[in-house]
């Protein structure tokens, strides 16, 4: 097992800048998920670590060893591809043992390792089958098995679950979590699905436009998003953003966007004078929009109109309009109010975030 360092990684495809100075340190035995929207450069970063893409600038090292110029097979990594990339003309067993056979590993050793990986992944029954004869989930397991057999220093997963249906994806997510507990390996996992990122990761690297937006544990990036992008990307349903201006009235700082006026308590934004007149975005997760009830450390009541209710079973999504501002709230089922009715809501200050409009960075505590 090994640590991985990215130092100032830059990637250009001709004039197109894909990665612009990525610095990430990944520790030994760590499960790191790189997450971001399509085209943010996360897969490119992974492929560069694997040695499948040229590195335009910067340095990648595995276990302190610079690997920029090393051939993929010499980097002691294993990769699981989005489309599995199982060799279609080889059986499961041949697929799993291919790398070892190329290295002329001892036959008994190959058999032992394949057997071990197959029993971890419950693939023993399928060893003689062709990839074509397997379901999507089984193919994915074979692809993981192919990685395990090689006993690499670092496992790379490139959106491994995105070709599976929703139910299977959940099952495989749990499988991968269990596998990590068992192997205790360094795993770098790329996905665009923030649920996978939140559930699997020890640490999350959030990327956008080729830049690392925030690195932190799942709960850190959820509770303390560093900027507007992270706040909007992590969490489902998406955070509500209110765009407006701060103003100082007496000693109290107020936020206003024309429809909603909120007092901003000092534990959210200290040094009120500094923020007078600042353009900001206030972020509140739907869970922290309290509808028709009070809570500790909550804002003043705001009057709104219920537009749509979505019943999910245990929870209910409410789409509320306050003046021209649209808000989403999640409440316990059953809310029992018909669309069009007036509702009272307030915001939970403890989970409220204030972002500067210009820099998009978080300025609240």
């Amino acid at each position, binding site marked *: 097992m090994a640590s991985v360092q990215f130092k100032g990684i830059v990637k250009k495809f001709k004039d197109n800048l894909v990665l612009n100075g990525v610095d990430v340190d990944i520790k030994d035995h760590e499960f790191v998920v790189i997450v971001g929207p399509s085209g943010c450069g996360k897969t490119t970063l992974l492929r560069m670590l694997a040695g499948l893409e040229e590195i335009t600038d910067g340095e990648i090292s595995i276990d302190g060893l610079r690997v920029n110029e090393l051939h993929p*097979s010499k980097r002691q990594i294993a990769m699981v*591809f989005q489309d599995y990339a199982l060799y279609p003309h080889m059986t499961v067993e041949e697929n799993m043992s291919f790398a070892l056979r190329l290295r002329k590993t001892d036959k008994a050793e190959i058999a032992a390792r394949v057997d071990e990986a197959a029993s971890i992944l419950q693939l023993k029954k399928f060893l003689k089958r062709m990839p*074509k004869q397997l379901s999507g989930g089984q193919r994915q397991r074979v692809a993981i098995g192919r990685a395990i057999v090689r006993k690499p220093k670092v496992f790379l997963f490139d959106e491994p679950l995105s070709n599976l249906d929703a139910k299977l994806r959940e099952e495989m997510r749990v499988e991968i979590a269990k596998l990590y507990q068992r192997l205790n390996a360094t795993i770098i996992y790329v996905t665009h699905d923030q649920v996978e990122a939140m559930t699997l990761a020890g640490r999350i690297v959030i990327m956008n436009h080729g830049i690392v937006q925030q690195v932190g544990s799942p709960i850190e990036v959820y509770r303390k998003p560093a900027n507007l992008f992270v706040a909007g990307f992590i969490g489902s349903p998406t955070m509500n953003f209110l765009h407006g201006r701060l103003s100082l009235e007496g000693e109290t700082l107020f936020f206003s966007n024309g429809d909603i006026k909120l007092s901003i308590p000092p534990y959210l934004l200290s040094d009120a004078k500094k923020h007078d007149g600042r353009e900001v975005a206030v972020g509140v997760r739907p869970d922290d929009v309290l509808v028709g009830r009070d809570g500790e450390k909550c804002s003043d009541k705001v009057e709104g109109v219920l537009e749509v209710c979505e019943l999910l079973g245990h929870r209910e999504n409410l789409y509320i309009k306050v003046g021209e501002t649209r808000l989403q709230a999640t409440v316990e089922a059953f809310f029992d109010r018909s669309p069009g009715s007036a509702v009272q809501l307030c915001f939970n200050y403890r989970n409220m975030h204030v972002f500067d409009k210009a820099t998009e960075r978080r300025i609240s505590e």
Partner: protein
Amino acid sequence: MEILRSIYEVAWFILLIAAGVAALVGYLYTHFRYYDRGWFAGVALAGYPVLALAGLRAAGLQLPSAAAWLFFASALIYVFFRYAVKGRHTVPYLLLAPAFVGLALLLVYPFVFEVYLSFHDLKLTTIMGWKNTGYLPFVGLEQYVKVFTTSPLSEVSFWALLGRTLLWTFSNVFFHVVGGFALALLLNNAIRFKGAYRTLLVIPWAMPQVVAVLAMRGEFHSQNGFVNIFINKLLAVFPFLASLGVAPVQWLSDYPLLTCTIINVWLGIPFMMVVILGGLQSISSSYYDAADIDGASYLQKLRFITLPLIKPVLMPAVTLGTVWTFNNINVIYLVTGQSGGTEQADILVSALYKAAFTYNRYSYSAAFAIVVFALLFFISVTYLHGFDAAKEER
């Protein structure tokens, strides 16, 4: 006015074909509609032959035995529809009918006639009698015996021809595949001016074969051909080559089969290249990524990834290439076959052509052609069987 006349004739011909197809479809239609009526048997067995005969007469054909043949055909069709089809699948049969007429005219009729010829004796001495009286002596299997025992030309035997044909086919297809594969691998890389290279490489295939072959034949001319001129220039620059045995040769008279092979390899590589390139481009790049990580070298990737994955496109192409090369009369005939040409380069089909149209042994050639057909059929079935087995494997 000549052009108007041509247009008129073509239009008349198209009209005639349309009428024939319409008649056939009408014939099938009534069959399906009334096959189980009591009066229908009589009409089908007597009415249609009479109508068809009237049509043939109107078209200017004088065939005394046509009536009997038409009656026989009509009876067969009647029995087939009455007892086998029983009025089922009306629409599919009607939709297939026009295509079936075309196939029958272009393939079935010539093939049946060829089988008929091969059991009779049609040659220069009997052809006038056949034309005047319609009589052809029946000889049974004699023509087939002759195929294996006598030479189709003046000296070379069937077996020598067969061996030469197999050698010719194998060497050509081998170099086609190897050359096409190498070029396809080169073109599959990200290189500059790829489109231009591809166009240039496809030209030999896109040109009419006759033009290409005749042009290449000129290049192998002993005095004025490019090949010998090039060898002479080379010798002038590097005199030591002469001591290695390099010298201009009489390509067309001394090495006719080799010359034909070189020309045909040049002609056939583009097809294989295009097919293999298509196959290469259909292979997902993630297999190569995975193989890179697994530590496969370039040759290992070629052997364990590329070759198995292009096999499905390669096998049909090789089968086609084998049949085409086996049957390639163009190159051999155009390079060596004209008057005074040599027999040293003849393969089965070119010998067959000469036997039929230079030596005028029609029945013998018919039997010969059927033997060649049987051989090719066997080769193709073996290939395709191997292909199916390969497909089962994955």
